[in-house]
């Protein structure tokens, strides 16, 4: 597998950034996820972090090095995040559970699968055209979908969601895929800080016209500009699919040389990292050193090619 990735997260005008995102991959499978911790409930940043960590941990267990049933996996992993949130809030005796949205996609072979809960979105753009995007679990998108069946009353606030992780009811999770990927396809995950102020047309145009390394910062800047001084957190992660077999000369992440049991992740394993240093035991140190030397070897090989 070969892909390139670019991600930017900005706090905007808010006090905290409650968005989290990250990705994990093995030789043959990659998980990309983004979560937007919800305001109005406690510890939004814990909620989004926990949801991603849970997914990443399950991904590490299940991808050996592929996931047998990707859609079932995405569904279970998101649900497990929800259960972790309930557990966390019970353990800490919180009066309310931290809540978060989540959107995740899984690349495997030359297929992509995705799932979401809430209003964080996935966009898929091919050759400058929007191929697919998730439908938000908000009353306003529901209204849009049903307006031919049920008469329209007043517009509902786009921010009101009917499902998310951490709410008392079981979360609604939509899954989609497999879609067959073509080289150059772009997948973008984002929080509502982006799509709330930047239109689907602009998103598609930017993603179609430029490299993701240019489009992502540009889109985030647009959102921050449009969002003004009270702008929501804006997080965007875009993946460009290069090919399933590694060819020479690509520039992105190539997973081909990874061993069978190698797992790489940008999602930190510990909750909020305050105990991050404690887990740095001898084995961890040795592993870090080995990883770095592997990376050095790969980079110097790349230079030679």
């Amino acid at each position: 597998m070969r892909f390139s990735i670019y991600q930017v997260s900005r706090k905007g005008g808010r006090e905290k950034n409650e968005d989290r995102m990250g990705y994990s991959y093995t030789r043959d499978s990659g998980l990309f996820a983004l979560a937007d911790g919800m305001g109005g409930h406690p510890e939004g940043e814990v909620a989004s972090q926990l949801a991603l960590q849970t997914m990443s941990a399950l991904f590490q267990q299940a991808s050996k090095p592929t996931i047998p049933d990707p859609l079932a996996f995405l569904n279970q992993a998101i649900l497990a995040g929800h259960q972790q949130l309930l557990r966390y809030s019970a353990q800490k005796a919180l009066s309310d559970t931290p809540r978060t949205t989540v959107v995740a996609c899984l690349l495997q072979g030359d297929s992509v699968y995705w799932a979401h809960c809430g209003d964080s979105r996935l966009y898929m753009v091919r050759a400058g055209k929007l191929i697919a995007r998730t439908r938000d679990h908000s009353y306003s998108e529901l209204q849009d979908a049903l307006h031919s069946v049920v008469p329209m009353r007043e517009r509902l606030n786009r921010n009101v969601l009917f499902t998310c992780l951490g709410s008392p009811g079981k979360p609604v999770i939509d899954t989609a895929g497999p879609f067959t990927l073509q080289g150059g396809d772009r997948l973008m995950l984002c929080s509502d800080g982006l799509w709330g102020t930047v239109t689907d047309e602009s998103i598609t145009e930017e993603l179609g016209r430029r490299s993701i390394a240019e489009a992502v910062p540009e889109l985030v800047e647009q959102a921050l500009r449009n969002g003004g001084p009270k702008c929501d957190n804006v997080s965007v992660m875009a993946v460009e699919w290069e090919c399933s077999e590694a060819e020479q000369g690509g520039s992105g992440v190539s997973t081909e040389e990874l061993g069978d049991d190698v797992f790489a992740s940008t999602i930190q394993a510990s909750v909020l990292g305050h105990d991050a240093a404690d887990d740095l035991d001898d084995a961890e140190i040795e592993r870090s050193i080995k990883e770095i030397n592997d990376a050095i070897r790969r980079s110097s090989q790349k230079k030679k090619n």
Partner: protein
Amino acid sequence: MSKLKPAPLPSGTVVGGYQIVKKLAAGGFGVVYLAEDAQRHMVAVKEYLPSSLAERSQGELTPRVKPEKQPLYRLGLKSFFEEGRSLAQISHPSVVSVLNFFRENETVYMVMNYLQGETLQDFIVTARDLKRDKVFRESTIRSLFDEILRGLRIVHQHKMLHLDIKPANIFITNDNRAVMLDFGAAREVLSKEGNFIRPMYTPGFAAPEMYRRDGTLGPWTDIYAIGACIYACMQGYPPNDSPQRIEKDRLALSLSRLRNVYSDNLLEVTEWCMSLDPLSRPQSVFALQKELARETERRYTKLTFGERLKLQLENLTTGAKA
């Protein structure tokens, strides 16, 4: 009372197959040595040895860390690994390359290319002592920063910030490459919440958000430092530090001294990069590169009589050189 700094490894010591020739530099994070590898090639070896946490007496190899300082020491080690991990992924002529990483003496070592040349700081000092009307030619500044920004862009693409860009950390090699050094302050942007230790900063080059506990650091933080470096290349001296600027900002005034010497565009770009408000700066290296590479006809604006008068008065009150 200042605590004794941990002693560097003596010349001749062999670590991980590299023989130490001499100490090159010491910073908060550790010591950098000139060493020779088995093929007698020169390399730079950086030893993790945080001076505030580790002790080592003369002639000893293994540093001692008091138990109460262990957690911080481990945390620092994690950052050292992060630096190695990120640098290892980057292979770019403008970013110092890592050759090896190993563990010995109960600490860790990072082996890097040894570069021969001088820092940009040395060049600025030499050039300004010539006392000509400009420190460097504009075309030199533009091509130098074009090269540096190419490297910085790759660094940012790897979710890393440098956070201590300054002329002393930009190395001009004898074969005329500009290379960014000392990623000791660099951190992975995404993991910065939680246990984030604010890196040390260099007054004049550090953006205002570096001074605040809650400041959001990003590519714009490095871009401020780039602006300050361009300023130093034109003026010969670093700009005022940002807390001072927040109190009374003389940047526009000191840049106006350079009008007619450097083009309006270069002065504007410098001021743009050094906006006190992070959001007013170029938000990405790409945005800045585009502006710097713009090859339009350069416009120069002379100072008006009133402005010259204002500058002279300013010089009288502050005693600054014109």
